């Protein structure tokens, strides 16, 4: 296979991967961030303790985290059909990717928020700060470098998940590697895909590290 033959395959596959990962990252943040906040706030000794609710949420998150992604993807097909109306194509796989990444990201959010010292939270309470304001003005800003680091890890994991999604009809670089590299023995394309994935992950990780470092004032 020559470069001229590979490029028309690589470019759309990269775009599909970027779409799957991009959209599912967006939804993961929108759902995972509040879930992570809830895990901390509702916990015993949290800002608004509700141990029973917290236990249920924790259980759901653990269920989500214990399913291998490939199993989860298949298991929630009915749900995907309900949400998107189809179960193939890039858009359809945003659903399982999001469902897979939300519990993962929520736990990382939880860990970052717990790193915020109880002394600053109590100082804010002593200043008469409401619980909502403590979340917005203390917990989230103080945890921001950790949240960015957690998001970076999540995006990298999503790229990995998206390759699996590709094999079930989601398209993208994983799909390309399987169809051409594995099934047609196009070793060169396989190698190029692998290198491309490595480069993308390295770039994203470096970007995430850089942002986290810029935000950190420790």
């Amino acid at each position, binding site marked *: 296979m020559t470069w001229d033959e590979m490029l028309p395959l690589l470019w759309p596959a990269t775009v599909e991967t970027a779409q799957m990962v991009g959209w599912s990252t967006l939804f993961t943040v929108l759902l995972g961030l509040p879930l992570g906040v809830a895990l901390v706030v509702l916990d015993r000794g949290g800002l608004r303790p509700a141990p029973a609710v917290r236990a249920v949420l924790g259980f759901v998150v653990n269920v989500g985290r214990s399913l291998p992604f490939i199993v989860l993807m298949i298991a929630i097909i009915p749900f995907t059909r309900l949400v998107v109306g189809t179960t193939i194509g890039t858009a359809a796989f945003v659903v399982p990717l999001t469902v897979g990444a939300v519990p993962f990201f929520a736990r990382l959010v939880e860990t970052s928020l717990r790193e915020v010292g109880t002394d600053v939270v109590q100082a804010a309470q002593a200043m008469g700060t409401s619980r909502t304001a403590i979340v917005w003005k203390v917990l989230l*800003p103080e945890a921001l470098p950790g949240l960015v680091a957690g998001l970076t890890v999540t995006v990298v994991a999503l790229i990995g998940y998206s390759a699996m999604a590709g094999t079930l009809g989601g398209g993208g670089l994983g799909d390309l590697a399987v169809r051409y590299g594995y099934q047609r023995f196009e070793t060169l394309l396989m190698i190029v895909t692998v290198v491309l994935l490595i480069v993308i992950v390295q770039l994203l990780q470096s970007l995430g590290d850089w942002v986290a470092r810029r935000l950190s004032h420790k």
Partner: protein
Amino acid sequence: MIQASGLRKQYGDVVALDGVDLSVRQGEIFGVLGQSGAGKSTLLRCVNLLERPDAGTVTVDGQELTALREADLNRARRRIGMIHQHFALLSSRTVAGNVAFPLEVMGVPRAERARRVGELLELVGLEGRGGHRPHQLSGGQKQRVGIARALAGNPSVLLSDEATSALDPATTQSILALLKRLNAELGLTILLITHEMNVVKSVCDSVAIMAGGRIEESGAIADLVATPGSRLTREIFPLPEPAPAGSVTLTFAGDPGRPVVSEVVRKFDVDLSILGGSIEELAGGSVGRLRVALEGAEAAAALAYLRESGVIVEEAS
């Protein structure tokens, strides 16, 4: 200004507060002295209800905090400043941003906030540092930011939770001097907890000594020092206990106005040897405590004369 009565707080089997009453007058600096685990930190945190006592009431500036609902409590807390041992500054904000935090919470408009932050930083001697990050400051400067932040809401009361314990001695003195100045200039009532006698000696008007969740002794320092056998006096002036038989301990609280010791020696023809003693500068003035042995026919008359002259005389049995 601060009234607490019958405070009890228990953590599992550990009784942190075992029926504590506290009364802090307006405009005074009140120190709670005790070792770690004595319950003083719990006591302080019960004053602004960071910890809710199991029993008892807390009244600050005429408002019974223990009776308030959350929203009202938050409003009341804005009139009670607090500073912390490890400063508790937000690393995500600049110095100015930290001082502005309580103003934001109170809903003060941006322009007003900026003006007030400038004033507060000047008040604590940090003008021009507003753009710095907390991690770029020394410990003493961080505590100054903490103090500026605590004063943002024009509080009537400042609570200090071991505010100088993480600082070196020179910085401790400068922070204490600042607190003293704020107390004098703003009429700020300060309740501080500490395990350092030095803090009590240099700034406090009144003190409560805590141990095992109870207040063992409390009152104005001048009064306690003038009370024979008070625990404060024994702790400020460490003399060997028990006093050797036949010795006499003399406490000079306040200036008697004349050299009473040499007077006694001349007048009653007694021999006086000094076994130990020291002089301390306290908030109310200098106080001396001497352990002496008196020998002579008129020793008893000499002691009576000392008592008449305002010296506190304790005879070892």
